[in-house]
């Protein structure tokens, strides 16, 4: 009986040990900057094949300019903390675009250089900060665009990271469906307001079924943060504005784009008359103001809610159709950020809360669909957990006659192979995401399917820790930018399913904002080599890898010293020799004289 104790003690020891390991957040510094050669480990995201294979292609290309990269596939649980701690030198993975280029602020502004912030690359530049600050408060889009071009140009000059490519969308539909809009991020996405109200079947089918790989994590438009829950929210709830196929804002629940006061701090939306909630009550400007106030009071986490929380000061509804919003300061994308919030009905939400007191025993967010009363094109009908969500057409929607389908179903199918089979068989009509690369050819050749092709919002970049030598040297970053053959990276990394990006605000995704004359770094390994040579990164030991500038400088001064020492030696020798010769001559002369 006494033998039992060791096991218990062992378990206890294990527990104690594991706890101790956890306490100092288990972090001890992974990366050490190189001290001799241009040789670094490069983190790539281990579960993302594209990140890994692009990294391998880049490593091979950089080898040609004397830079040695070791690709280190890293799990995100290890990668992100390292990025936050700037415990890395170089990394490659995908980030993402929003519908408007707010990433130009998040990725380049000094205020975003912090853990859990917008940028992982410790990039600080006072000049860029000043222009971004100016751009952020410019409500005139044309003027803002001129400033944006400057930002993009300056970013290109400083190369805080190297843009590589954006992934492509290959979206498969059953061929009888038409009327969808192909635009950046895909024909079915939460940035696409146009497809679901306008899609219809030439075969007269009235049910449109979309296969999802997982359920929306919430039915609350105030808590939705993922593509699937945002798509649900967008179907049931309406927004003040929407985007056209070029991601330019267009009126939606409103009669036009919002008016701005001359100081840019007051924004006025005018609602369309006779808008109705799904329960029959009227949508008024009060609901609009309520929505923004709710987002601020409850710290909602929905799409661009952060910007509403940051800029919303107060709001008022002088009449039922006019919503006046006072901003804390002008904001270039105020119309987009406020205009794309899902408007919720005050009469249903007014006594609800989103954030509980901190005790873990309340539902944090109302995630059941029972409050799913919106004013959007579709109405909630039924939900079978783990199976499907069924929405039906809202017959009273403001766009008369639309949607053209009667039923919209989100069906959960866990694996891509089963989803593709289901589309081919006709059990579903399309899927939420792009077809996975391995299936694209199969889908393209199927006579019953049509494939829509566009760019997605995930952009792959090669990023530097801009503070860590040698990446603190802009010439090294520039040389690397020249040394990368992006076409080859797309071909090898993304199997060709990507679109090369040369700028920081690429025209393929942001046709309005992109700078057409921005500095680019076309593939030119010779130029890269020359640049590194000129900057003093030379391969002095002949192993094909360049040495650090400081090492080269040391080596050069050593060489010089050696030479100097040698010269002194020669001089001394010469002097001694001269003295000896003179002495010898003198002796000979004296002997002769004696003789």
């Amino acid at each position, binding site marked *: 009986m006494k033998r039992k104790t060791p096991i218990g003690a062992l378990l206890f020891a294990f*527990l104690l040990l594991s706890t101790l390991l956890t306490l100092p957040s288990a972090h001890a510094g992974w990366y050490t900057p190189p001290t001799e050669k241009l040789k670094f480990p490069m983190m790539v995201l281990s579960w993302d094949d594209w990140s890994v294979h692009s990294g391998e292609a880049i490593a091979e290309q950089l080898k040609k300019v004397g830079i040695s990269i070791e690709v280190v596939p890293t799990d995100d*649980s290890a990668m992100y903390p390292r990025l936050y701690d700037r415990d890395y030198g170089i990394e490659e993975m995908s980030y993402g675009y929003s519908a408007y280029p707010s990433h130009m602020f998040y990725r380049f502004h000094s205020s975003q250089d912090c853990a859990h912030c917008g940028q992982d690359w410790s990039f600080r530049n006072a000049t860029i900060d000043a222009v971004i600050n100016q751009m952020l408060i410019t409500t005139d889009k044309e003027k803002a665009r001129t400033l944006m071009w400057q930002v993009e140009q300056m970013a290109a000059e400083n190369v805080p990271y190297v843009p590589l490519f954006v992934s492509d969308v290959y979206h498969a539909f059953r061929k009888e469906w038409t009327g969808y809009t192909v635009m950046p991020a895909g024909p079915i996405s939460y940035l696409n307001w146009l497809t679901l109200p306008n899609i219809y079947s030439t075969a007269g089918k009235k049910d449109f079924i979309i296969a999802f790989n*997982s359920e929306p994590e919430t039915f609350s438009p105030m808590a939705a943060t*993922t593509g699937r829950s945002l798509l649900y929210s967008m179907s049931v709830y309406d927004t003040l504005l929407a985007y056209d196929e070029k991601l330019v804002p267009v009126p939606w629940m409103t009669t036009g784009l919002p008016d701005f006061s001359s100081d840019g701090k007051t924004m006025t939306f005018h609602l369309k008359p006779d808008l109705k909630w799904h329960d029959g009550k009227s949508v008024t400007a009060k609901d609009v103001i309520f929505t923004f106030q709710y987002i601020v009071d409850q710290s909602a*986490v929905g799409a661009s809610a*952060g910007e509403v929380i940051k800029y919303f000061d107060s709001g008022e509804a002088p009449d039922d159709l006019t919503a006046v919003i006072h901003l804390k300061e002008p904001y270039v994308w105020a119309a987009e950020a406020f205009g794309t919030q899902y408007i919720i009905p005050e009469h249903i939400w007014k006594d609800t809360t989103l954030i509980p007191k901190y005790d873990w025993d309340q539902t944090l967010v109302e995630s059941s669909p029972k409050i799913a009363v919106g004013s959007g094109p579709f109405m909630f009908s039924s939900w079978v*957990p*783990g199976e499907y969500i069924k929405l039906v057409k809202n017959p009273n929607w403001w766009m008369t006659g639309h949607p053209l389908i009667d039923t919209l179903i989100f069906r959960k199918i866990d694996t891509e192979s089963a989803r593709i089979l289901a589309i081919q068989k006709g059990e579903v009509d399309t899927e939420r995401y792009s077809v996975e690369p391995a299936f694209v050819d199969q889908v393209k050749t199927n006579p019953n399917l049509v494939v829509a092709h566009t760019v997605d919002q995930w952009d792959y970049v090669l990023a530097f820790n801009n503070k860590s030598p040698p990446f603190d040297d802009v010439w090294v970053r520039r040389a690397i930018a020249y040394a990368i053959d992006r076409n080859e990276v797309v071909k090898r990394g993304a199997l060709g399913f990507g679109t090369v990006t040369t700028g920081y605000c690429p025209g393929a995704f942001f046709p309005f904002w992109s700078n057409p004359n921005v500095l680019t770094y076309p593939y030119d390994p010779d130029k890269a080599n020359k640049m590194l040579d000129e900057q003093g990164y030379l391969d002095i030991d002949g192993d094909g890898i360049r040495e650090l500038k400081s090492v080269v400088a040391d080596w050069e001064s050593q060489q010089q010293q050696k030479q100097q020492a040698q010269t002194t030696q020669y001089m001394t020798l010469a002097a001694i020799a001269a003295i000896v010769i003179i002495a010898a001559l003198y002796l000979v002369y004296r002997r002769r004289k004696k003789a």
Partner: protein
Amino acid sequence: MRDYLVKRGASALATLALAIVLNFFLFRIMPGDPTRTVVGDFRVAPEVRKVLVHQFGLDQPLWTQFLLYIQNLLVGNLGVSFQYRGTPVASIIFGRRIFNTFILMGSSIAVALVIGIIIGTIAAWKRESKFDVFTVIFSLVTYSMPVFWLGMMIILVFGYYLGSIPIAGTITVGMTYSNPLEYVADYLHHMTGPFVTLTLSFIGYYFLIMRDSILDVFTEDYMLTAKAKGLSNRKILFRHAMRNATLPMVSLVAVEVTYLFGGATMTETVFSWYGIGRLTYEAVVMADFPVLQGIFVVMAVVVIAANFLADIAYALLDPRIRY
């Protein structure tokens, strides 16, 4: 007997307590950052991320989190899920998911067990016959075949080409049922694929153990006695050999109870069967600690309870076990 009960009960409770404590720290050892995976969306501003971190209590010291976890557990609260934005873990686990898993696993384990025992017995009886060779090969093949591959093949052939089973899910999308029987029929129709897959993958294991165990029994003296008594082959086989050989199977079943609630991740994923196995997988991917903790606590309770009951049952049934 009372002493035995108290002793076993106390040790079961102690194990449970240890499991619960371990359960909390197990997931914290992983160097994961649930906020980045849960709030992976790039549009979520840093301020919002902070709010979420606070909502989930991840900004609290580990010991505070641990005390809250224990405190909540004592009142039967499993916490709230990260990935499902604050839905209570209890409502996620004890819903359709555990029902689906229980039905699927229960039926396939039961059927596989019955088939395994029967053909195992026959194969052992007719050792080295064609039947024996065939069933051994068959069970080795099905046992070592990757379950997901078998599942995908079944979907491809029966779901896609023949169209006799549905490709995914547990019920037909958007269907309304006029009576419960129709619902049951639809449900069973959807269960065919995963049921066949799992049954096939389980049979081999049970079959091989049963066959070996019968072969062992055949060497026992009482088999000779039975033969000497002039009993028929059938009686010897099913009354004496099979009954005694089934004892190891009983303890095997006690272990299999875990699967009843734990589910089969691969099969559930391939057939989009909405169960606990799939939930575990999702929770791991999303670093959803509360859900994982919840599943593990439930499993720990089930396993410990099952073992406790098995101990008592053994003591009652088998006179050789003393206490």
